């Protein structure tokens, strides 16, 4: 995921399944210096983590987002 988001960019994190305890903190730490935000409207990127709901991905694509899927359950969308 980190290789797909430039340093210092802001991302919105969307987990498909509940993470282990403190898993959100761990991912946030591992993605530094990229900054997680609270709302998609604050982000340049959306990270889909262990879950890529088709409707959400399609919605982002309709808005002009570039979506890159990788492995089975992960995707990064660059918002327009």
């Amino acid at each position, binding site marked *: 995921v980190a290789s797909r988001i430039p340093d210092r960019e802001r991302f919105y994190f969307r987990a498909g399944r509940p993470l282990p305890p403190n898993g959100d*903190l761990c991912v946030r730490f591992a993605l*530094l*210096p990229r900054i997680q*935000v609270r709302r998609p409207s604050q982000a340049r990127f959306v990270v889909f983590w262990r879950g890529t709901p088709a409707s959400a991905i399609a919605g982002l694509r309709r808005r002009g987002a570039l979506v890159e899927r990788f492995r089975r359950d992960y995707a990064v969308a660059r918002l327009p």
Partner: protein
Amino acid sequence: VSRSALGFAGIHLLFAAAGMALLYALGFVSRLRHLLTALGPAYLAGLAGVMPVLILLMVLGVPIRAVEATVTATALTVALAATGFALSRRRPAPAPADDEPPADTAERWLARAGVAALGLYFAIGASAFAKLPAVGDDWAFWSYKGLVLYDYGGRLDQEVLTGAFPGPAHLDYPMLQPLFESILFRGMGGIHLQEWHIALWILFASFVWTVGFLFRSRGVGMPVLLGPLAALGLSPLAATWVAIGYGDVSVACFAAAGVLCVGLWLDGGQARYALLGGVLLAGAANTKNEGLTAAAAVLLAAAVVLFRTRRDGAGGHRWRAWAAAAGIAAAGALPWILWRSSHGLRNDDVPALGNSLDVDFLTGRLDRLSQAVGKLAAQLANQGAWIWIVPCFLVVAIVCLATGSARRQAAFYLGTAVLMMLSLYWVYWTGRLEARYWLEFSGDRVVTGVVFVSAVGLIHLLALVLSRRPPDGGRVRA
């Protein structure tokens, strides 16, 4: 030699230089040969003295990067060295070597062997800790904050650190360790999360060195020092907390060194001990919240001992020294407290005093207090972890209280340890987290400061008892 190694050494020497100047200004070092013997305490004092100033600057909006840290530390070094030079012309500065007791050949060889063994242990530890992963609280907040400061210009006003965006846990925790980590990374030219553990290990080693240095400055012999110091240095849990990058040993080092300085000052020491104690307690208060309560505990216990001391006669200047130490500690702690308060950052694990100071609230949670008392006592009694430090301290302290030998010092160290324990009990008693779970993952760590205080108290009391001098009179020597 790599750039990172040079930067690592350079940043450490920067703080050691400032600390050495502080020790010189206070009269703890006066000769060139002391530059080596006082290197450990200089480093610890340098961190405790410079970091609160850097935190103040950061709170005021100054970005703290390598340049700012270097300029600040250098300016403090020059100012303190000039002060020391001016003071040294007015009064002779006592030096450790001047106070060293005469040692026979056997004692001299024991001392050399002990110091060499401890030195080897810490050298091997530094090598072993060179490649360790970031785990648990390290990535959850300590190194997390350090990386944010490193990546975002050494500024506090980042959304990640103010809570506007999701960030690390415990935003209210003081910033000494993360800021130091970010400065070290800048000096090393990049992020070195694994090597960072070496810095924490050096801090621990410098504390052990400081305890030895301070006791030697009061003429305590190596046979008394080596046993408790070795037990502390070799204690498995202390090494564990360093290895996983937590802040518990860091805060314990500053707090216990501060306790020792104040204890030596109460034991007929000059005011310079109290002043150095104030600086070290400021370092503790800026490292973890437990450091703040430890500083308050030390100063309160010292005040009670001072108040109870009637035959001293020189009450006025003793209280002035106490006030100076308290002022230094408070001035060092306040910037971060004010900043976090102004940004609405507080410890969500514990309710505000206004809510918890309620009889119904407290009596309804007595089971939590009971669990905390049992769990923390079990931790202190875990000799596999702390090698008999606390039981030995308790025995010696109680004997001192009962027999009247070194009663003031025993009351001070015991009072400090008890107050520190009470603050821990209060947190678990009133806290919001489920008690059993909370005690399970933190109970073994939070007693670290109490163990370290017990260790320095044990050495001090043993030195007093073995010196066979009149109770509470004269100077420490054994």
